[in-house]
């Protein structure tokens, strides 16, 4: 009992703070701490790569098996909306990169502005995704009990299928369009979930950035969130051609 009391009194003398307050005691330098955190973030992102990689692999295999169904399914997606979303996401990646730069240069106003822009673009992406999902719900293209094969059995009754010049599919192939939309919703849904999490963290960061938390030279959090945001961008860079584009010609 008395031992611990002695320690408590002695503690302030033992610890001399020659390092910045945000540096943990078990790291020798701030750079070492930053490198270690960066490494951890990359390991997390690699697990994400494997996770999305499984979905992409499933998509490639099923596309090869049920080729006509996947072509007809992808003709139901809107390239203008998908393209617009790609633009929003790429620009948001740029504003995020500029946010990291602002934090590094200790420009508080610029950092808050960049984070706000990134969040707005992210919300814009989610808004457009909602419009796209809404259209799928309206046309009964969501896999499940209410799934409708009409657009694929009778393409002349469907605007998008007619525009793409689709031929009627035999019933067994038309049924496989449900596999396409299952993968479409699984992949874009998981991607959208990552976006929602990202936007939530951005909101948290904007509040913290306004109080100057990231412009003290401690940029690790902004930097690692940037890695996450760019990763989500990369997933979309692959989703857009695979789901929307490659069956268009």
């Amino acid at each position, binding site marked *: 009992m008395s031992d611990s009391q002695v320690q408590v009194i002695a503690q302030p003398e033992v610890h001399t703070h020659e390092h910045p307050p945000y540096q943990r005691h078990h790291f020798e330098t701030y750079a*070492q701490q930053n490198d270690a955190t960066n490494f951890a973030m990359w390991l997390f992102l690699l697990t994400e790569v494997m996770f999305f990689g499984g979905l992409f692999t499933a998509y490639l295999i099923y596309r090869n098996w049920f080729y006509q169904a996947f072509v007809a399914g992808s003709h139901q997606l809107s*390239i203008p909306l998908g393209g617009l979303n790609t633009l929003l996401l790429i620009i948001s*990646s740029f504003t995020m*990169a500029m946010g990291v*730069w602002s934090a590094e240069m200790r420009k508080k106003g610029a950092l808050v502005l960049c984070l706000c822009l990134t969040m707005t673009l992210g919300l814009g992406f989610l808004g457009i995704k909602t419009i796209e999902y809404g259209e799928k719900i309206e046309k009964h293209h969501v896999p499940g009990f209410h799934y409708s094969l009409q657009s694929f059995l009778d393409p002349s009754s469907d605007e998008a299928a007619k525009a793409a010049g689709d031929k009627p599919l035999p019933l067994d192939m038309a049924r496989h369009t449900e596999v396409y939309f299952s993968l479409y919703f699984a992949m874009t849904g998981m991607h959208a979930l990552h976006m929602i999490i990202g936007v939530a963290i951005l909101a948290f960061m904007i509040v913290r950035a306004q109080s100057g938390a990231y412009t003290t030279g401690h940029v690790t959090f902004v930097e690692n969130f940037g890695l996450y945001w760019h990763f989500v961008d990369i997933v979309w*860079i*692959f989703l857009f051609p695979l789901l929307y584009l490659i069956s*268009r*010609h």
Partner: protein
Amino acid sequence: MTETSENAIDHESPEVHEREHHIVSPRIYIMILLALLVGTAITVWASYVDLGEWRVAPGLVIFWNPIVALAIACTKATLVVLFFMHVKYGTKLTKLTVGSGIFTFLVLVGMTLADYFSRAWGRW
């Protein structure tokens, strides 16, 4: 003895980690943004053109459209990883982590696809 001296060196030279924090300039970010926008434009344009196919062998046909789309996507992803994600300016540890991760990913996907595509489905 050598061990202690090595330890001493390790402790006295935090320079191993004291690499100057590299700040990527906005000029590079803008150039990458433009490259990504151009890449997006090209991939949308290319998707409307029928790029044909290559009949490698009976039963094995390679369509150029998906290949071109994926090549452009890979280029864009590489630009994002190298510049937006700072891997080009990162430590060797970061480079090794990213490189080995992508390598493992390609092995897993490649072998899975090779298995699925090379089986005589329904013919046994």
